[in-house]
């Protein structure tokens, strides 16, 4: 039971029942935001959350996401450099 997906909170639909509209790639569904409602509900609008069985279970930390992506990018670049170096070395060898 782990199918959770990131969705953006686009509106608060029922303050009393802690309901908000979430959007995933243009598809909307009302979700309960009890788990992520720490301050004013309105502050949630625009934020991204992990949606699971009709609940926003956790807010997505954009910084952490960026960090992860950056690590991936670094790894890719490092490899490219390595490859280029390997290719350069091979070329040098060939020339030699």
């Amino acid at each position, binding site marked *: *039971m*782990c*199918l959770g997906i990131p*969705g953006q909170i686009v509106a608060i639909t029922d303050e009393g029942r802690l309901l908000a509209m979430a959007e*995933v*790639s243009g*598809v909307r569904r*009302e979700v309960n935001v009890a788990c992520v409602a720490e301050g004013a509900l309105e502050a949630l609008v625009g934020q991204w959350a992990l*949606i699971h*069985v009709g609940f926003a279970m956790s807010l997505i930390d954009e910084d952490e996401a960026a960090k992860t992506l950056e690590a991936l990018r670094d790894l890719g670049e490092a490899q490219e450099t390595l490859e280029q170096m390997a290719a350069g070395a091979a070329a040098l060898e060939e020339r030699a």
Partner: protein
Amino acid sequence: MALRDERVTLAHGGGGKAMRDLIEEVFTSVFQPPGMEDQARLSAEALTEPGAKLAFTTDSFVVTPLEFPGGDIGKIAVCGTVNDLAVGGARPLWLSAAFIIEEGTEIALLRRIVATMAREAEAAGVRIVTGDTKVVGRGGCDGVFVTTAGVGVIPPGRVMGAERVRPGDVAIVNGVLGDHGATILAARGDLSISSAIKSDCASLGHLMEAVIAAAPQARAARDLTRGGLASALNEIAEAAGCGIEISEADLPLRAEVVGTCEILGLDPLYLANEGRVVVFVPPEEAQAALTAMRAFAEGRDAVVIGQAVSAHAGQVRMKTALGGARIVDMLVGEQLPRIC
């Protein structure tokens, strides 16, 4: 205007005047079938050509809700049968339309459905020539069921069939996948999802004629209805005795369809379509077939999605976007939304 009721009652199914009024006012006045007998009598030159074959098909349509973004049950009842004729290489000529109507159905709704059917039939170049209505008590059916049968003619010498597909043949679809299925899931309301997608519901008779004209060696075609692309490809692979390989990166999918599938844990490969077809043509005719398709509104987004291969006979495999591979099997039962 003998029909003063707002809703269908059991009296409209009883075989008497109320029934005749309903049939005349709502159905035959719009469809204008030839003659007054309970059978259409038809002559078609095309059928008398030596070697021509008659194509005959049927489908029942039971969609909920009856009206949805992009169409209604009447539209899919016409398109579905026109397409079943067209994908077999037949030119659709005539349709029958049988309605099973639940007591309490709004007559205005029936009129809308009938109007859509008439409009769609005209656009598809077919005539609705005979029909039937039955009324069942409340709870006896879900609103309206429509069953159409279609008769068409296959010109002499034209042979299309899944068993003719051979390795190397190219698979083309005429547009984005799963719009109809995603639309219906949202329109039903019980999953409380909404989006701006519309059903892809469309008649593909003209498009298929153009494709066959452009790619005369076209091997086979299948409309992608229940079970989606995956089921159609599996059927073809099995009938042809070869493998099929598609590429995930090439699958045309609308963001909203992907979103719907992510939310519900569904696979778009298995979502229903009502205006999509996969056509297999030899590689040398692929470009011509694509060009022919793209000349139609309902083929504008046509793309090659894969090809038949000699490996893994009977099996469909997909190269994932990451370069991995997975088997795309037939679905077992209904696709049920997952939560995990």
